[in-house]
């Protein structure tokens, strides 16, 4: 049922291509003598990129603290890296990772963070002025919404 690697890569290439076009527009505006401020990252892209880095940092902190979670958490961590790459804007985490007393608490913390992130991305999508970016952020919102039950499913086993 799951897409093959080739299909996943080409899909990612399509998404990265779409945001690449948006980025090219910003760059060409700069070379034609536009205000320097227009060369800055789109605020929605910057917001999403920062939030993805925060999630990545939180996953990394829990994988370090609870190595037994690595096999389950690494695929989700990698999907956030895919989100960040597709947005294509360099950013630093906007919040520091929190600690958890045990592995189960860590999973619950991540599930809450994913739900909050999905809702925040829905707002980012509404704020996006570029259609390609809106589509990409809608997919990221859906992905993060789906991470929450994927995480809570781990607690049942």
């Amino acid at each position, binding site marked *: 049922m799951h897409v093959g690697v080739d299909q996943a890569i080409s*899909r*990612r290439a399509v998404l990265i291509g779409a945001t690449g076009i948006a980025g090219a527009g910003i760059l060409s505006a700069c070379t034609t003598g536009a205000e320097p401020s227009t060369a800055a990252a789109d605020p929605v892209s910057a917001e999403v990129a920062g939030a993805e880095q925060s999630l990545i940092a939180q996953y990394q902190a829990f994988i370090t603290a609870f190595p037994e979670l690595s096999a389950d958490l690494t695929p989700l961590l990698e*999907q956030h890296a895919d989100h960040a790459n597709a947005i294509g804007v360099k950013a630093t985490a906007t919040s520091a990772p929190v600690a958890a007393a045990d592995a189960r608490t860590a999973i619950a913390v991540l599930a809450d963070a994913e739900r909050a992130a999905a809702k925040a991305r829905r707002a980012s*999508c509404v704020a996006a002025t570029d259609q390609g970016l809106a589509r990409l952020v809608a997919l990221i919102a*859906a992905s993060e919404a789906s991470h929450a039950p*994927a995480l809570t499913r781990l607690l049942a086993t």
Partner: protein
Amino acid sequence: MTTSAIEAAISGEDACIYAYGVIGSQVRGAAKPRARKALAEHRAWRDRLQAQSTGIVAASIAYDFPFPVEDSVSAKQLAVLVENRMVGLYADLAASVAGQAREDAVTAAMECATRAIAWGGLPQAFPQG
């Protein structure tokens, strides 16, 4: 452009509703009410989209599935497939509308991706079928 994205989403929901009729007949136990609930949710989104669309989208009488659906396992696989495909259609719709309509489209995409997990799907970075 807006019309075509919304009509594609309506057509997708029609196919999804048809699929859930078959899925509901194949699954057993707790999956049965889950299929009924999903069917009701997809009908609600379809009606909501239809109310916003100026065109009339007619559902097909029957749809071909990409693989035979003749047991509980294949029925759940079909549910994962149609839910993830709906995510892609709702992302297209989100891109083509603005404001509340865009927020609604993202909400629908989030719900579809979440249901795909409930049916046993694996999370994807860009769920779209």
